[in-house]
């Protein structure tokens, strides 16, 4: 239904929906590329796997201006307090994607020098596996996060509030809710 069908020149909707849609459409990442995953993150922002179509091409250098911290790479013991400091400098609402197995769980480096999973330091919303994850995997993780933000699922408390149910029209294939991307209105 287009704007021509409306008898009046305005749309109505919930303010929260608009806010959630705006948040997910222009989620600006902070540069936190550490190691090999940073190269794949840069590749996903470059020509072949364009992140700009999701509104995320501007990697803000200052954490104060960023919403999303993509921890790309292995976090060493020396880097851990720096990571926490950068996370603390970000403004609410903020999200974290742990990109790669080293950020998710320590990866292949189960030793004295690497923090075994960045969720020991900051709360993580989406984990992207891979060593390094291909840009498609990273975009899948980003879109999962976008979907969680858009549907409000990310703000619900587990066990207290009922889970968000996306209305399933007949043509939508049976996929887990995290994977389902919003269908066009």
């Amino acid at each position: 239904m287009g704007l021509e069908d409306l008898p009046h020149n305005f749309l109505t909707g919930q303010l929260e929906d608009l806010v959630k849609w705006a948040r997910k459409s222009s989620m600006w990442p902070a540069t936190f590329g550490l190691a090999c995953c940073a190269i794949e993150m840069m590749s996903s922002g470059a020509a072949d796997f364009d992140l700009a179509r999701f509104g995320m091409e501007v990697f803000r250098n200052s954490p104060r201006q960023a919403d999303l911290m993509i921890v790309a790479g292995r976090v060493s013991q020396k880097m851990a307090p720096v990571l926490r400091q950068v996370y603390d400098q970000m403004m609410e609402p903020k999200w974290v994607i742990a990109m790669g197995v080293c950020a998710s769980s320590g990866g292949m480096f189960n030793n004295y020098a690497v923090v075994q999973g960045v969720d020991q330091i900051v709360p993580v919303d989406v984990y992207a596996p891979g060593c390094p994850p291909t840009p498609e995997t990273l975009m899948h993780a980003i879109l999962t996060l976008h979907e969680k933000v858009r549907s409000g699922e990310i703000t619900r408390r587990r066990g207290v509030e009922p889970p968000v149910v996306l209305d399933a029209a007949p043509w939508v294939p049976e996929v887990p809710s995290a994977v389902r991307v919003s269908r066009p209105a």
Partner: protein
Amino acid sequence: MTTETQTIQAFEGFPTVASPGVAAVAFIPRDQYKAVVGALKADGFEMASDVCGVDYLIAGARTLPESVKPERFEVVASLLSMSRRIRVRIRVQLPDADPMVDSLFDLYPGTEAMEREAFDLVGIRFAGHPDLSRILLPEEWEGHPLRKDYGIGRVPVQFKSTPGPR
């Protein structure tokens, strides 16, 4: 890789062995280490490629020349002669109680970072080094991880047992 058997004058009097890719590997006692390296530098070895430390605590029997007494620590310096296109390697044995050796910083300023790393990870002290502080690990870290009595520090993982003994 060139495996030339050129005689290195600075190595006269010291036990040497052959090794692939280098002209000679010499075992130098630690009090003559800097003098030999200085002689090599004067002989045309313009660049110090690498200085690293090794901990031979659990190695068992090593094949060393008879006159060389095996100790726990070793400092291995690789030097490169660009004019003659050869490499040499120097191995210095250092005892467990006092792992200290002369620094090569005066001869080759490029060894500063390499010696700091050997100190940081293996615990070998370099006398005359201008700033022997930790370089890779945080400042307040205790211990030297590449020593064999320092564990790998792994956390237990379900369904994956720790690797067996060497």
